[in-house]
């Protein structure tokens, strides 16, 4: 299956001389949800802006469903819906007006039924006649999503779509994304909420300092690093791990007040039972115990730190 977006040798140097992207090569598969993660300033928005025609690339090419974004911009752009990171809205327009405007701008004939559906899906229907200034931040963000969906795009870019959206609505937006994906739309999303990527993405890409440092299927990624940690809060702090316990993968944390045991959930035996027995034999008492799954967040942090 050929990718719906293929990026090759793409770089971007801003007028300030700052190189925001260094030779990006990336393919986005048709119909997938691709989560692009990266710390602030990594180049996520820059990459999206180039694909959507808001910024010019310095070198390289991007094909959108086979159309070059520069030579064949009309065909390329008409497939794309963009929800930018910043909230840019026409304050005095009505919700209905601004969403209809977007559809017209993309050259699509009027279709009130479609716009009604989009607004209903995003729980904006009762606000359709409100002026945008009168809406809350989360509602404005949904208006931006409605604008992007107004022209029935095949590809949807969501640059931090759920920033500033409450938990319930975020779940609602995830449902909207899933429905879109089911109807064949490819979604590229950036987010700082790792759980959002864990929840939604088929594949995850990590970008740091203008370079893609990892692209992996989420399931594989989670599996590969499917480790768990058990943290014991000790009754009295230790200065070092007792030699009697040296066979376990143990480490001290929080000035010796915590003992951390890392184990693989996939292995036959986790070693927890014997560890607890050995701890008792060694006379080490603990006041509390917690286990955490190593998450995408840990993976992300370790990648970006490296």
């Amino acid at each position, binding site marked *: 299956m050929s990718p719906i977006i293929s990026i090759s040798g793409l770089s971007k140097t801003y007028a300030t001389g700052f190189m925001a992207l260094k030779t990006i090569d990336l393919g986005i598969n048709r119909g997938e949800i691709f989560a692009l993660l990266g710390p602030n300033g990594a180049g996520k928005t820059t990459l999206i802006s180039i694909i959507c025609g808001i910024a010019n690339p310095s070198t390289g090419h991007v094909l959108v469903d086979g159309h070059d974004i520069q030579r064949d911009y009309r065909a390329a752009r008409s497939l794309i819906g*963009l929800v930018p990171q910043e909230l840019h809205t026409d304050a005095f327009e009505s919700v209905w007006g601004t969403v209809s405007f*977007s559809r017209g*701008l993309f050259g699509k004939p009027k279709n009130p039924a479609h716009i009604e559906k989009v607004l209903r899906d995003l729980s904006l229907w009762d606000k359709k006649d409100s002026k945008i200034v009168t809406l809350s931040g989360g509602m404005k963000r949904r208006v931006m999503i409605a604008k992007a969906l107004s022209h029935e795009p095949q590809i949807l870019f969501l640059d931090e779509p759920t920033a500033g959206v409450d938990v319930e609505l975020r779940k609602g937006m995830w449902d909207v994304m899933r429905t879109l994906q089911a109807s064949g739309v490819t979604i590229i999303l950036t987010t700082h909420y790792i759980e959002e990527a864990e929840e939604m993405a088929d594949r995850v890409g990590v970008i740091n300092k203008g370079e893609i440092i990892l692209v992996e299927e989420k399931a594989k990624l989670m599996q590969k690093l499917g480790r768990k940690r058990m943290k014991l809060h000790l009754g009295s702090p230790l200065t070092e791990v007792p030699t009697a316990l040296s066979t376990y993968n143990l480490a001290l944390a929080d000035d010796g007040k915590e003992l951390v045991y890392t184990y693989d959930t996939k292995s036959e035996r986790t070693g927890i039972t014997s560890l607890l027995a050995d701890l008792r034999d060694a006379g080490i008492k603990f006041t509390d115990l917690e286990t955490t799954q190593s998450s995408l967040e840990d993976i992300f942090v370790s990648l970006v730190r490296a």
Partner: protein
Amino acid sequence: MNFRAVRAIYKFEMSRTFRTLLQSVVSPVVSTSLYFVVFGSAIGSRITQVEGVSYGTFIVPGLVMLSVLTQSITNASFGIYFPKFVGTIYEILSAPVSYVEIVLGYVGAAATKSIIVGLIILATAGLFVPLHIHHPIWMLIFLILTSVTFSLFGFIIGIWADGFEKLQMIPLLIITPLTFLGGSFYSISMLPSGWQTVALFNPVVYLISGFRWSFYEIADVSVAVSIGMTLGFLAICMGIVWWIFKTGYRLKN
């Protein structure tokens, strides 16, 4: 050609105008009336006739042009500056539209508005002095040509401006003086001969002269030259707009 996009932009811009209807229409009417009171009555009582027409009648084309020029520039520059300023330009840039379509939408709307204002001023003037238009078709051609040209010029300013001061600087520091010195309220032949030559470097002189000719068949320079200069300026503006979109100047970073 993405006509739906042109229409969407045009409609959006026009509805912005109608939201500020009072300011867009009432203020030119009021200021025109004031010009008539001040210039027409006060000066007109001393200068009774200029080249065979009464002074009040003589200044009508200049007054219309004055408003059309400033309206075209402010409408068009604000029209494109504002989305740049609030960031909604992202949508225009990411839409499947060519620069021709963007310009048609924005400049078309700005020009429409200034033509409407020009006609309203003409009607207002008709309340003060008797009007007779010798060449109504040419009058409209000049009106449209000027509106379009200066809306294009305003569009360029709106793209170039990176702050509100710059946005207002050009109309205030260049256009208003050029219009006042361009023979809105007098005939160039009334100037000392040295200043007459200087005046010929003022493009607005050609617009007002041609426009006034369509009313009364009196002109400071020949009509052909007037049209030629206007078309020349139009061509320059189109060239600059083409370059802006080709390079993404101040639009894409």
